[in-house]
């Protein structure tokens, strides 16, 4: 509409640069401001660095305040402008053009569509139902406050988010770059991977990949002194059992590569036991683990995660 009625022309004549009709500048994807500058924006977030310039100062305002600043090169209270208030009303009828929206195909033609997968699209991740016995190795032991950035680094690795096998190569990279190779080797031999952690495991970003990629690598359980709320929920969603120690001092007795066994792992979860015995076959001692799971979460874990659980429920 603004192209047809000449408004776009007025903006361009003023000296505005017209950008893609997209999120662009708001997600730091373009138009990062200069060093230590003041940028006035009509978007919704001004966290430090989000604009793409770490030391820029971002102010969020209405379009009117922003336009006034563009005209004068400084903040102006628009009520002080020597200008008549530009009264604009919502149109009685918008110009409607849905030509850039592709409507769904007729049902019988859909099955013929070939899914396009470029090299950056990985195989969809899946998981098996929970095994009857858990028999595996402590593939990694991390200390207190391991964040989701330790588990699944973002930054330069984030562009692989659509490619789980590729992104999984970087699980725990900042802590132990050999983790993914070792975990994958165990997984391929049918040995379950177990993560042992300290306090507040999984704090920070809510990113699902911190559970999804360990699932892909065959992690079946996390045993920690405590696990953050969102991450614990994500672990359940991807079929990884979040355990805590009944006695926190057991953390000290567990060592990397210890062989751990939980007999009747499946049935213990299914029956909702809140404490479960694990055998450390390497140190030849028993430790007690706790779970705090709702009935829904237990069903999800037994199915191998939220996706297989949803499929099962639909088939019933």
């Amino acid at each position, binding site marked *: 509409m603004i192209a047809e009625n000449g408004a776009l022309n007025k903006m361009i004549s*003023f000296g505005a640069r017209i950008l893609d009709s*997209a999120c662009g500048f708001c997600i730091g994807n373009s138009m990062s401001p200069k060093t230590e500058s003041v940028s006035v924006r009509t978007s919704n977030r001004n966290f430090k660095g989000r604009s793409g310039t770490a030391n820029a100062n971002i102010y969020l305002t209405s379009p009117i305040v922003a336009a006034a600043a563009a005209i004068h090169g400084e903040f102006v209270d628009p009520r002080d402008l020597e200008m008549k208030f530009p009264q604009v009303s919502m149109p009685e009828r918008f110009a409607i053009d849905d030509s850039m929206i592709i409507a769904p195909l007729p049902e019988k033609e*859909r099955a013929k569509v070939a899914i396009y997968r470029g090299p950056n699209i990985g195989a969809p991740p899946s998981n098996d139902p929970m095994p009857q016995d858990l028999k595996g190795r402590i593939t990694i032991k991390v200390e207190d406050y391991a964040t989701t950035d330790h588990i699944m680094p973002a930054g330069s690795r984030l562009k692989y988010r659509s490619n789980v096998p590729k992104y999984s190569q970087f699980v725990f990279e900042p802590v132990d770059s050999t983790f993914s190779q070792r975990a994958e080797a165990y997984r391929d031999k049918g040995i379950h991977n177990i993560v042992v952690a300290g306090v507040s495991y999984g704090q920070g970003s809510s990113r699902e990949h911190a559970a999804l990629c360990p699932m892909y690598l065959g992690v079946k359980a996390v045993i920690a002194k405590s696990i953050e709320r969102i991450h614990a929920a994500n672990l359940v969603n991807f079929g990884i059992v979040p355990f805590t120690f009944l006695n926190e001092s057991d953390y000290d007795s567990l060592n990397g590569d210890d062989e751990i066994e939980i007999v009747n792992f499946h049935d213990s979860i299914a029956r909702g036991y809140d404490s479960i015995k694990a055998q450390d076959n390497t140190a030849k001692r028993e430790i007690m683990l706790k779970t705090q799971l709702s009935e829904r979460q237990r069903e999800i874990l037994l199915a191998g995660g939220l996706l297989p659980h949803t499929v099962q429920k639909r088939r019933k």
Partner: protein
Amino acid sequence: MSFTLTEKILREHIVEGSYEPGNEIGIRIDQTLTQDATGTMAYLQFESMGLSQIATELSVSYVDHNTIQVGFENADDHQYLQSIAERYGIHFSRPGNGICHQVHLERFGQPGKTLLGSDSHTPTCGGLGMISIGAGGLDVAVAMGGGAYYLTCPRIIKVNLEGELSPWVTAKDVILKVLDTLTTKGNVGYVCEYGGEGVSGLTVPERATITNMGAETGVTTSLFPSDRQTRKFLAAQDRADQWTPLKADDDADYDRIIDINLSDLEPLAAAPHSPGNIVPISKLAGMAVDQVMIGSCTNSSYVDLMTVAKMLNGRHIPTGVALGIAPG
């Protein structure tokens, strides 16, 4: 019994749990939206569910995030998303068509429905009187497959609006005032429900600016009633048949009430580096500005852009200032 608007819509959609604030409840999702940055993983997860088509009333896949395509990865991802949409019965909004929230508000949102989106600003459609919530990709994939979405049954904050906006003061200043009051912390598990006489003077695009940036308070979503303004907007979008009137009962109970007189508001800004760090523009007057960026899912309605065009008309940008406009 008297109900808030949130409760009315949620009760219509509840499939698991009982409606008690703080409880986990499962709700049926009518519509979903995804954008390209979170969408690829959501659809990979949807694919692995092995369904032949979506089970929602409507699902839309938007491409609006990684449109500056440096390297092959994003262009490939967009093509993947398009083919997925064709295979499973999903609408596909091509790159260039606009920002998901803006387009969904205009072309698909519907009062009384539920919308789950893999983007935190999904509550934009609350401006239409629908429950619209941002969530993770897997939650959206499950909802597309017909599964329930689980959330904490919310407590309700009523934002009571009186009066009407003065010239030069806008809906953006309303949400900045709300952020000044609620701050960006301590609101998890709440829904902001707007009401009061001042609501009737706000158009749907203005309401959408408010519900969009309501995300910054941390609430589950924000919601306006569906009234004559809603009907007017839907009619202007040639969708008058999708209108239904919806509002809270007059004697509904709220967990907290905030009063805002629109007539008293002044132009505001969120200063660095938090959307909750609110200062009046009058206190910033005179501070030099290097760059101005107009647009985004918060503020690129027709009225927003036309107002800017009228203000800029016949003038020229000062040296030393850069202005970018992204029509959403």
